């Protein structure tokens, strides 16, 4: 999976035709095999762009900032990224006419150990679902499978699971990198940051972290697209996907096999009402 040349060509064309003000892509870090996001404003910088199986970061994260909001933006999206973009469009966070989207029919990205990432192995939609130009050969939607770690965790008794999560949250430093790396966490003021609130703990204690992360994961329930930007951003390597994948499974099973952002204008599971929604878990 190497679309470096195609992306450079397209970006160069868009700049020369003055169709975009800004292009968001990936560049090599220069010191290791990894790639980092790069925001390009000029035609001459286009040659920095690369795209391989190390292009991990979900670039739609940059669409939530003030300085990209009213600009014409070109960007690269993989399958999962395009789903989050779909949600941002539905939730009126970006304007479709301002975007030029290069979609990728993704073959999966590598993690730091050089293996195919877990979310790519379990990916339900590797092809970009929204694009102006598609690179690669689409392979279509795959069957939903329950996350391997969730399956493992489900076998543990409730008490053990509780301790497991407590041990995890103990390492949280509450830097909020997870939230800031999430394209769907676009609120200008997050409820968790209300320092004078008596509802949320502002301290970096384990219970504070527990509370903050649980709230965060519930705000993403039915919206998370499993791009794992949060997990990759976490300096303490917390397995944050456990929270989201659990929510995803519950929603998939209870809300007519709902998967976030698959179709344009599809509202999240919690935003729409259907007569056929099950009510057996509502008291």
């Amino acid at each position, binding site marked *: 999976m190497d679309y470096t040349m195609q992306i450079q060509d397209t970006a160069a064309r868009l700049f020369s035709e003055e169709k975009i003000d800004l292009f968001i892509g990936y560049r090599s870090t220069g010191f290791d095999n990894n790639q*980092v996001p790069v925001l390009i404003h000029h035609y001459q910088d286009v040659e920095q762009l690369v795209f391989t199986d190390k292009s991990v970061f979900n670039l739609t994260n940059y669409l939530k900032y003030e300085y990209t909001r009213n600009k014409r933006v070109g960007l690269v999206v993989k399958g999962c990224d395009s789903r989050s973009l779909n949600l941002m469009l539905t939730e009126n966070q970006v304007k479709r006419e301002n975007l030029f989207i290069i979609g990728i029919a993704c073959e999966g990205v590598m993690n730091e150990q050089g293996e195919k990432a877990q979310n790519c192995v379990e990916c339900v939609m590797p092809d970009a679902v929204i694009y102006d130009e598609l690179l690669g050969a689409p392979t279509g939607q795959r069957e939903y499978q329950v996350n391997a770690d969730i399956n493992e965790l489900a076998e543990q008794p409730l008490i053990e699971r509780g301790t497991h999560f407590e041990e995890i949250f103990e390492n949280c430093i509450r830097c909020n990198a997870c939230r800031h790396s999430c394209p769907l966490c676009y609120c200008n003021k997050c409820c968790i940051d209300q320092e004078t609130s008596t509802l949320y703990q*502002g301290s970096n204690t384990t219970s504070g972290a527990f509370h903050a992360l649980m709230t965060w994961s519930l705000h993403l329930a039915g919206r998370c697209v499993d791009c794992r930007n949060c997990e990759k951003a976490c300096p*303490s390597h917390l397995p944050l996907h456990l929270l989201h994948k659990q929510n995803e499974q519950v929603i998939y099973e209870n809300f007519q096999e709902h998967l976030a952002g698959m179709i344009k204008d599809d509202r999240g599971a919690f935003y729409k009402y259907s007569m056929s929604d099950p009510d057996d878990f509502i008291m």
Partner: protein
Amino acid sequence: MNLTTYITEPAGLQSFYEAIVATNETYAPVEKLGKFDYKQIKTPPECQPDSPIEQTMSIKPLFFPKSARVMKYEATAEGTDVTDTTEDPLAGKRVILGVKHCDARGLQVLDEVYKWDYIDTDYQKRRENTIIISARCEQAATHCFCTSLDYDVEQSDAMDVAVINGLDGKVYIQARTEKGEHFLKENASGLAATNGSALEEMKKQYQAFSGSFRLKMDYKEINGKMQSRFESPAFEEVATNCVSCNTCAFVCPTCHCFKITDERIRDEGVRYKSYDSCNNIYFTLMAGGHNPRPAKYRRWRQRAMHKFVYYKERFGVNLCVGCGKCTISCPVNISIFEVVNQVSNV
């Protein structure tokens, strides 16, 4: 005062560690979720004193915890009762094993601000009661640049005891401060003291170590140039892909900003002092709603200038120790090294 160097085999070092753990409250890097964090240990095998530098959190939380109770209060019919929270779990006599050179230096840098103006007695007590034993840094990691900064890494007295791997396969344990000398007298009784030849070996080891650095810069040049770069447009460029999280500051061994929050249930409450970061948009938000640093580049400018200009002007040392933790932890790998070099050279 004469400082002694002891010589031993790698196996001897292991029993040296074991003896320390048996008789002292000891902290050392312990692995969890692929990251190493300094935790209290009971037996040496749990810990890895020579943990990989970039995967190890800093020792800052042992002196400046990520969240500390400041006081408790309670509203009563007569008024408000305020009690100091006196219990401090970090104030006892303790030893920290496997401290990286940059981390140890970070404490020296922090000392400047903690003894200036307001004297933070909690911090002073924790510092006084701690013996710092360094890790064996043999090779620079990708983002290390400690040798390019304003301290002598080779002769550093930031740690009380330095542990050095000689190129000859021996391990050298050297006291670097008076505190360390006393500590070794009590705890290194089984080890042989050595003389001049050891210093030769350690010099060779240091040369091999300093030759392994990918990043090199002249800090004096950077300090000088940065002073005139406040209005530099380069800040805007370097900050474009920053996501404005707080990671760099929270993992940094020298960042020391904090916020005060109250947690109250009915009439009782606790006041906490927790980490805060200048990269956070709320950091400078004022009660009236004005924010002097609303744009990312202004916050990044503050971070870079504080590290390489303001702190240097006030205290004579850089607020960066070249550990590279911020770069490796950053979601988009923004390197403070690249930032200051880029800004200085525009």
